[in-house]
Protein backbone atom coordinates (compact mmCIF):
# COMPACT_ATOMS: atom_id res chain seq x y z
CA UNK A 1 0.00 0.00 0.00
CA UNK A 2 1.46 3.35 -0.93
CA UNK A 3 2.25 5.91 1.75
CA UNK A 4 0.58 9.29 1.68
CA UNK A 5 3.29 11.65 0.62
CA UNK A 6 3.69 15.34 1.22
CA UNK A 7 2.76 17.39 -1.78
CA UNK A 8 5.45 19.96 -2.53
CA UNK A 9 3.96 23.36 -1.91
CA UNK A 10 4.89 24.77 -5.32
CA UNK A 11 2.93 22.20 -7.29
CA UNK A 12 -0.05 22.43 -5.04
CA UNK A 13 -3.13 23.30 -7.06
CA UNK A 14 -5.67 23.14 -4.32
CA UNK A 15 -8.21 25.80 -3.40
CA UNK A 16 -6.64 26.36 0.00
CA UNK A 17 -3.39 28.04 -0.77
CA UNK A 18 -0.74 27.91 1.90
CA UNK A 19 -0.36 31.02 3.98
CA UNK A 20 2.77 33.13 3.85
CA UNK A 21 4.34 31.46 6.82
CA UNK A 22 3.11 28.43 8.61
CA UNK A 23 4.03 25.49 10.74
CA UNK A 24 3.90 21.94 9.54
CA UNK A 25 1.96 19.85 12.04
CA UNK A 26 3.68 16.67 13.21
CA UNK A 27 1.55 13.88 11.83
CA UNK A 28 1.33 10.17 12.46
CA UNK A 29 -0.10 8.08 9.67
CA UNK A 30 -1.09 4.51 10.19
CA UNK A 31 -3.18 1.91 8.56
CA UNK A 32 -5.46 -0.63 10.13
CA UNK A 33 -7.71 -3.26 8.63
CA UNK A 34 -10.47 -0.69 8.32
CA UNK A 35 -8.60 2.13 6.73
CA UNK A 36 -6.13 4.93 7.05
CA UNK A 37 -5.76 7.22 10.03
CA UNK A 38 -3.87 10.50 10.16
CA UNK A 39 -3.22 12.16 13.48
CA UNK A 40 -1.93 15.72 13.28
CA UNK A 41 -0.84 17.85 16.21
CA UNK A 42 -2.13 21.37 15.99
CA UNK A 43 -1.98 22.87 19.47
CA UNK A 44 -3.82 26.12 19.98
CA UNK A 45 -6.13 25.65 17.00
CA UNK A 46 -9.67 26.76 17.52
CA UNK A 47 -12.39 24.65 15.86
CA UNK A 48 -13.66 27.46 13.65
CA UNK A 49 -10.16 28.10 12.39
CA UNK A 50 -9.77 24.58 11.08
CA UNK A 51 -10.30 23.59 7.45
CA UNK A 52 -9.91 20.11 5.98
CA UNK A 53 -10.45 19.57 2.28
CA UNK A 54 -9.96 16.68 -0.09
CA UNK A 55 -9.81 17.18 -3.80
CA UNK A 56 -8.61 14.65 -6.31
CA UNK A 57 -6.91 12.66 -3.59
CA UNK A 58 -5.03 15.64 -2.22
CA UNK A 59 -5.83 16.18 1.44
CA UNK A 60 -5.21 19.66 2.79
CA UNK A 61 -5.37 20.58 6.45
CA UNK A 62 -5.20 24.12 7.59
CA UNK A 63 -5.66 25.58 11.04
CA UNK A 64 -5.67 29.06 12.41
CA UNK A 65 -4.90 29.73 16.05
CA UNK A 66 -6.92 31.70 18.55
CA UNK A 67 -5.93 35.25 19.33
CA UNK A 68 -2.68 35.43 21.20
CA UNK A 69 -2.89 36.60 24.74
CA UNK A 70 0.12 38.79 24.40
CA UNK A 71 0.48 40.29 27.81
CA UNK A 72 3.76 41.18 29.19
CA UNK A 73 7.32 40.76 28.21
CA UNK A 74 8.20 37.59 26.38
CA UNK A 75 11.00 35.69 28.04
CA UNK A 76 10.95 32.43 26.15
CA UNK A 77 9.22 31.48 22.95
CA UNK A 78 9.47 27.89 21.81
CA UNK A 79 6.01 27.35 20.50
CA UNK A 80 5.47 25.98 17.10
CA UNK A 81 1.87 27.00 17.40
CA UNK A 82 0.66 29.48 14.87
CA UNK A 83 -0.96 28.88 11.56
CA UNK A 84 -0.70 25.25 10.48
CA UNK A 85 -0.78 23.91 6.97
CA UNK A 86 -0.08 20.58 5.36
CA UNK A 87 -1.04 18.83 2.16
CA UNK A 88 -0.89 15.10 1.54
CA UNK A 89 -1.19 13.05 -1.59
CA UNK A 90 -3.37 10.14 -0.64
CA UNK A 91 -3.05 6.79 -2.31
CA UNK A 92 -6.06 5.86 -4.40
CA UNK A 93 -7.13 2.97 -2.20
CA UNK A 94 -9.19 5.01 0.19
CA UNK A 95 -12.70 6.28 0.08
CA UNK A 96 -12.31 10.02 0.39
CA UNK A 97 -16.07 10.51 0.34
CA UNK A 98 -16.35 8.96 3.74
CA UNK A 99 -13.56 10.79 5.49
CA UNK A 100 -14.17 11.59 9.14
CA UNK A 101 -12.45 14.27 11.16
CA UNK A 102 -12.28 14.95 14.88
CA UNK A 103 -10.46 17.63 16.87
CA UNK A 104 -9.61 17.03 20.48
CA UNK A 105 -7.03 18.66 22.76
CA UNK A 106 -5.32 20.24 19.82
CA UNK A 107 -5.04 16.95 17.93
CA UNK A 108 -6.81 16.43 14.63
CA UNK A 109 -7.67 12.83 13.79
CA UNK A 110 -8.74 11.94 10.28
CA UNK A 111 -9.92 8.51 9.29
CA UNK A 112 -10.51 7.22 5.81
CA UNK A 113 -12.07 3.86 5.23
CA UNK A 114 -10.73 1.63 2.54
CA UNK A 115 -12.58 1.71 -0.72
CA UNK A 116 -15.24 -0.95 -0.74
CA UNK A 117 -13.91 -2.61 -3.81
CA UNK A 118 -10.61 -3.30 -2.09
CA UNK A 119 -12.02 -5.00 0.91
CA UNK A 120 -11.94 -8.74 0.55
CA UNK A 121 -15.44 -9.74 -0.33
CA UNK A 122 -17.08 -12.92 0.51
CA UNK A 123 -18.78 -14.24 -2.55
CA UNK A 124 -21.78 -16.30 -1.87
CA UNK A 125 -22.05 -19.46 -3.81
CA UNK A 126 -25.50 -20.56 -4.68
CA UNK A 127 -25.64 -24.28 -4.60
CA UNK A 128 -28.31 -25.92 -6.65
Amino acid at each position, binding site marked *: *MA*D*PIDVPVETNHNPLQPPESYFVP*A*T*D*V*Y*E*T*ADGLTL*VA*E*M*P*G*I*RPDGLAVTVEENVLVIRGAP*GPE*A*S*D*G*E*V*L*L*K*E*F*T*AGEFYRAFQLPADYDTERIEAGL*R*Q*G*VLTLTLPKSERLKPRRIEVKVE
Partner: protein
Amino acid sequence: MAMIPWRGRTLPVATLTSLREEMNDLLSRFWSHTSEPFGLAEWSPALDVSETDDAVLVHAEIPGIDPKELDIAVVGNTLTLRGEKKSETEQEGTNYHRVERRYGAFTRSLRLPAAVDAEHVTAKAAAGVLEIRLPKREEAKAKRIEIKAD
Protein backbone atom coordinates in the same frame (compact mmCIF):
# COMPACT_ATOMS: atom_id res chain seq x y z
CA MET B 1 53.95 -8.26 19.60
CA ALA B 2 56.39 -10.02 17.36
CA MET B 3 58.71 -7.85 15.43
CA ILE B 4 58.12 -8.10 11.74
CA PRO B 5 61.39 -8.16 9.94
CA TRP B 6 61.66 -5.32 7.55
CA ARG B 7 63.00 -6.60 4.40
CA GLY B 8 63.29 -3.36 2.60
CA ARG B 9 59.86 -3.52 1.03
CA THR B 10 57.28 -0.84 1.55
CA LEU B 11 53.67 -1.73 2.23
CA PRO B 12 51.34 -0.46 -0.45
CA VAL B 13 49.77 2.75 0.91
CA ALA B 14 46.42 1.87 -0.59
CA THR B 15 45.87 -1.09 1.70
CA LEU B 16 46.68 0.98 4.77
CA THR B 17 44.25 3.78 3.96
CA SER B 18 41.46 1.39 3.03
CA LEU B 19 41.98 -0.44 6.29
CA ARG B 20 41.74 2.82 8.17
CA GLU B 21 38.61 3.78 6.26
CA GLU B 22 37.11 0.47 7.03
CA MET B 23 37.80 0.90 10.72
CA ASN B 24 36.32 4.39 10.71
CA ASP B 25 33.25 3.13 8.95
CA LEU B 26 32.86 0.30 11.40
CA LEU B 27 33.21 2.60 14.35
CA SER B 28 30.74 5.14 13.05
CA ARG B 29 28.24 2.43 12.34
CA PHE B 30 28.74 1.13 15.83
CA TRP B 31 28.15 4.52 17.39
CA SER B 32 25.07 5.29 15.32
CA HIS B 33 23.55 1.97 16.26
CA THR B 34 23.69 2.89 19.90
CA SER B 35 21.92 6.22 19.45
CA GLU B 36 18.46 6.31 20.94
CA PRO B 37 15.98 4.17 19.11
CA PHE B 38 12.81 5.96 18.18
CA GLY B 39 10.34 6.24 20.98
CA LEU B 40 12.91 6.49 23.72
CA ALA B 41 14.22 9.87 22.60
CA GLU B 42 13.91 12.65 25.13
CA TRP B 43 10.92 14.82 24.55
CA SER B 44 9.46 17.72 26.44
CA PRO B 45 6.75 20.20 25.55
CA ALA B 46 7.58 23.54 23.99
CA LEU B 47 7.13 26.46 26.36
CA ASP B 48 6.33 30.11 25.95
CA VAL B 49 7.09 32.21 28.99
CA SER B 50 6.15 35.82 29.50
CA GLU B 51 6.15 38.18 32.40
CA THR B 52 3.82 40.99 33.33
CA ASP B 53 3.97 43.37 36.27
CA ASP B 54 2.18 41.04 38.56
CA ALA B 55 2.50 37.54 37.17
CA VAL B 56 4.60 35.06 35.25
CA LEU B 57 2.74 33.26 32.49
CA VAL B 58 3.86 29.91 31.21
CA HIS B 59 2.23 28.30 28.19
CA ALA B 60 3.03 24.70 27.34
CA GLU B 61 2.16 22.83 24.17
CA ILE B 62 0.47 19.64 25.26
CA PRO B 63 -1.57 18.36 22.33
CA GLY B 64 -3.09 14.98 23.01
CA ILE B 65 -2.20 15.02 26.69
CA ASP B 66 -4.90 14.81 29.32
CA PRO B 67 -4.40 17.86 31.54
CA LYS B 68 -5.65 15.92 34.55
CA GLU B 69 -2.62 13.69 34.28
CA LEU B 70 -0.14 16.53 34.46
CA ASP B 71 1.88 17.26 37.53
CA ILE B 72 2.68 20.92 38.11
CA ALA B 73 4.92 21.81 41.02
CA VAL B 74 6.44 25.05 42.21
CA VAL B 75 9.37 24.82 44.57
CA GLY B 76 11.05 28.09 45.38
CA ASN B 77 11.77 29.77 42.07
CA THR B 78 11.47 26.62 40.02
CA LEU B 79 8.46 25.37 38.15
CA THR B 80 8.44 21.68 37.27
CA LEU B 81 6.07 20.18 34.78
CA ARG B 82 5.73 16.43 34.62
CA GLY B 83 3.53 14.23 32.50
CA GLU B 84 3.27 11.64 29.83
CA LYS B 85 2.06 11.63 26.29
CA LYS B 86 0.60 8.29 25.49
CA SER B 87 0.10 7.00 22.02
CA GLU B 88 -3.33 5.81 21.02
CA THR B 89 -3.93 2.18 21.81
CA GLU B 90 -2.47 0.01 19.15
CA GLN B 91 -4.64 -2.55 17.55
CA GLU B 92 -3.31 -5.77 16.17
CA GLY B 93 -2.20 -5.39 12.63
CA THR B 94 -1.64 -1.64 12.65
CA ASN B 95 0.83 -0.63 10.01
CA TYR B 96 2.62 2.63 10.65
CA HIS B 97 3.45 4.65 7.58
CA ARG B 98 4.76 7.69 9.36
CA VAL B 99 5.42 8.58 12.97
CA GLU B 100 6.38 12.17 13.56
CA ARG B 101 4.77 12.83 16.89
CA ARG B 102 6.88 12.47 19.95
CA TYR B 103 5.65 10.39 22.84
CA GLY B 104 6.67 9.41 26.30
CA ALA B 105 7.11 10.68 29.80
CA PHE B 106 8.67 14.07 30.32
CA THR B 107 9.90 16.29 33.08
CA ARG B 108 10.73 19.89 32.45
CA SER B 109 11.91 22.42 34.97
CA LEU B 110 11.98 26.13 34.51
CA ARG B 111 13.71 28.78 36.56
CA LEU B 112 11.20 31.55 37.11
CA PRO B 113 12.27 35.15 36.61
CA ALA B 114 10.63 36.34 39.82
CA ALA B 115 9.49 35.08 43.19
CA VAL B 116 5.98 33.70 42.90
CA ASP B 117 3.18 32.99 45.28
CA ALA B 118 2.93 29.21 45.02
CA GLU B 119 -0.40 29.16 46.84
CA HIS B 120 -2.17 31.08 44.12
CA VAL B 121 -0.88 29.45 40.97
CA THR B 122 -3.63 28.62 38.50
CA ALA B 123 -3.56 26.44 35.43
CA LYS B 124 -6.02 25.88 32.65
CA ALA B 125 -5.87 23.90 29.44
CA ALA B 126 -7.61 24.45 26.12
CA ALA B 127 -6.99 23.10 22.62
CA GLY B 128 -3.81 21.35 23.61
CA VAL B 129 -2.24 24.40 25.25
CA LEU B 130 -1.71 24.61 28.99
CA GLU B 131 -1.62 28.05 30.56
CA ILE B 132 -0.07 28.41 33.98
CA ARG B 133 -0.43 31.71 35.75
CA LEU B 134 1.97 32.33 38.60
CA PRO B 135 1.22 35.52 40.47
CA LYS B 136 4.27 37.30 41.74
CA ARG B 137 4.93 37.84 45.38
CA GLU B 138 4.32 41.36 46.57
CA GLU B 139 7.98 42.15 46.91
CA ALA B 140 8.69 40.93 43.40
CA LYS B 141 6.09 43.11 41.73
CA ALA B 142 7.33 46.08 39.80
CA LYS B 143 6.77 49.18 41.79
CA ARG B 144 6.33 52.57 40.39
CA ILE B 145 8.50 55.04 42.11
CA GLU B 146 7.11 58.51 42.19
CA ILE B 147 9.48 61.30 41.53
CA LYS B 148 8.62 64.38 43.41
CA ALA B 149 9.63 67.37 41.40
CA ASP B 150 10.03 70.70 43.06
